[in-house]
């Protein structure tokens, strides 16, 4: 599949204002976002996520490295007409109402007034903001601004949507709504590039991810590949308690009790052994699946490992 965004060996240093000390924000970063996938850029605070997004949009120029977005050079104006961007903690002209602001941004995106009115209605609906409200944006709550920011990013019906922490400031219901919007964008054939440290969100929507730390790519690929632990399986039993299940270790690696069920982590070649041991103990076999660690485990493992 063609790539929507690719970055190669990007390096970016910021000059501190007065002292002229250079801070490296990004070092040797490469990534590749395929068309029509949901791509997550993960990393701890200060890892360089926002900087990466800004480089793609041309808000910041890299010191070295190359890349392209939608087949155009990074930051190109014609690429931007097919991109929607949701900044981190978006802020808009406080004195405008949602409709007025959408009209302003729509004009800048090159749309005509009728199209903007039609799109505004659809989009305010989509993100769950009221139509025709007299409330100006400065009176919006954080979550409302975030929703407005998403509406604004989708005005031009973009092919690529870049979102910097899309669910920040939203309550759990709001987060779920945003997740649904992101997935529906993919169904419409669009590419979504988001940065986040909401790992559960990333885990539930992203097809592939890139984990960066201190400006460098640490791990990237399809989420399924990254989370699967080769050669390890997970067996679950019912009708057992943790104490009784301890008898399975070894040969099992680890047992855990969750909602009255026992999950057993085991090397794949020992599956049958554990199943028969469980049956002898009177446990009821429920499932056998490849073991998958959580994204959180992976993330912490990587970030901690890096720091040592």
């Amino acid at each position, binding site marked *: 599949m063609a790539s929507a965004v690719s970055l190669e060996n990007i390096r970016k240093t910021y000059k501190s204002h007065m002292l002229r000390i250079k801070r490296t924000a990004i070092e040797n970063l490469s990534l590749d976002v395929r068309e029509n996938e949901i791509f997550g850029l993960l990393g701890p605070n200060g890892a360089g996520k926002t900087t990466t997004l800004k480089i793609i949009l041309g*808000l910041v120029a890299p010191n070295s490295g190359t890349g392209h977005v939608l087949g155009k050079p990074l930051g190109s104006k014609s690429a931007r007409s097919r991109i929607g961007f949701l900044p981190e903690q978006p802020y808009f002209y406080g004195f405008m109402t949602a409709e007025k602001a959408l009209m302003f941004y729509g004009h800048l995106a090159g749309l005509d007034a009728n199209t903007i009115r039609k799109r505004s209605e659809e989009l305010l609906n989509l993100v769950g903001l009221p139509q025709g409200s007299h409330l100006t944006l400065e009176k919006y709550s954080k979550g409302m601004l975030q929703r407005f920011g998403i509406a604004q990013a989708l005005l031009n019906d973009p092919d690529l949507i870049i979102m910097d922490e899309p669910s920040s400031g939203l309550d759990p219901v709001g987060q779920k709504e945003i997740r649904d919007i992101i997935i529906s964008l993919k169904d419409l054939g669009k590419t979504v590039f988001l940065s986040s440290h909401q790992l559960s969100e990333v885990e539930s929507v992203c097809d592939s991810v890139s984990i960066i730390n201190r400006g460098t790519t640490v791990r990237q690929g399809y989420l399924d590949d990254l989370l699967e632990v080769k050669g390890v399986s997970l067996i679950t039993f019912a009708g057992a308690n943790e104490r009784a299940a301890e008898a399975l270790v070894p040969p099992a690696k680890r047992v855990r009790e969750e909602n009255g069920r026992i999950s057993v982590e085991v090397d794949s070649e020992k599956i049958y052994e554990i199943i028969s041991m469980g049956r002898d103990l009177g446990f009821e076999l429920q499932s056998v699946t490849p073991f998958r660690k959580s994204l959180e485990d992976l993330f912490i493992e990587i970030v901690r490992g890096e720091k040592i």
Partner: protein
Amino acid sequence: MRNVIFLAINVIRDSFRKKIFYVVFIFGLAMLALSPLLPSFELGLQAQFLRDVSISLTSLFGAVLAVIVAVGQLPVEIEKKTIYNILSKPVSRLQYFAGKFLGVVSTLAIILLVMGIEIIILIYLRLKVFSPIVFEGVLMVFLESCIIASFCYLMTTFASIPVGVLAAIFFYVLCHVKTGYLHGKLIEGVSGAWRVLTWSLYYIIPNLENYNISQQVGYGHGVPGGYTVRVLLYALLFVGLFIFIGYAVFRRKDL
């Protein structure tokens, strides 16, 4: 061009929503309305005095507004991050930079035009003298405030708001006072490197005294058309220069 105009209109709208704008405006008008008349019975002299004072006041007012409006653009948009939603749209940095400045200049034009009309009305109400010549003075004030605004605008491409304001005040004083001083030095005759430096400074620093025609407006005869054209071109030159340098900085700025 479309984008430039949308951005400019937005600057005008935004400016007219700021309270400080009206505070300065009302303060200027109040000073005018309350300025004492000369203890002279001669109507002509009184009108002359009022026109002179009102243009001088407008000039100060124009300078202050130029700074306020120009400084309130780039640094504010960058700090509030409203710039991201604009430059991530298909808007080039040139369109953005030009649109914002066009908005600043239009704001100044509108407010000074209103000011001019009010001065004429005030003078008419107090003395029953109609003085359209006031517009000539207001035009000069406008040109001067464009130069000041473009300088401020340039400063804020790399400096913070307080630094920009200080630099503007320094610039204003320098352009009004220093040119006369340097000219004096040149006539006095300095030598060698100093002479070169003085000469270059003399030409580099715009002479804002060119735009001080309050006396001529006071007398009621104004300035010749040729003079107006010359100082207009002079203003264009400096505004063009400052905006050009400003854009060169802004074009490569990390946001």
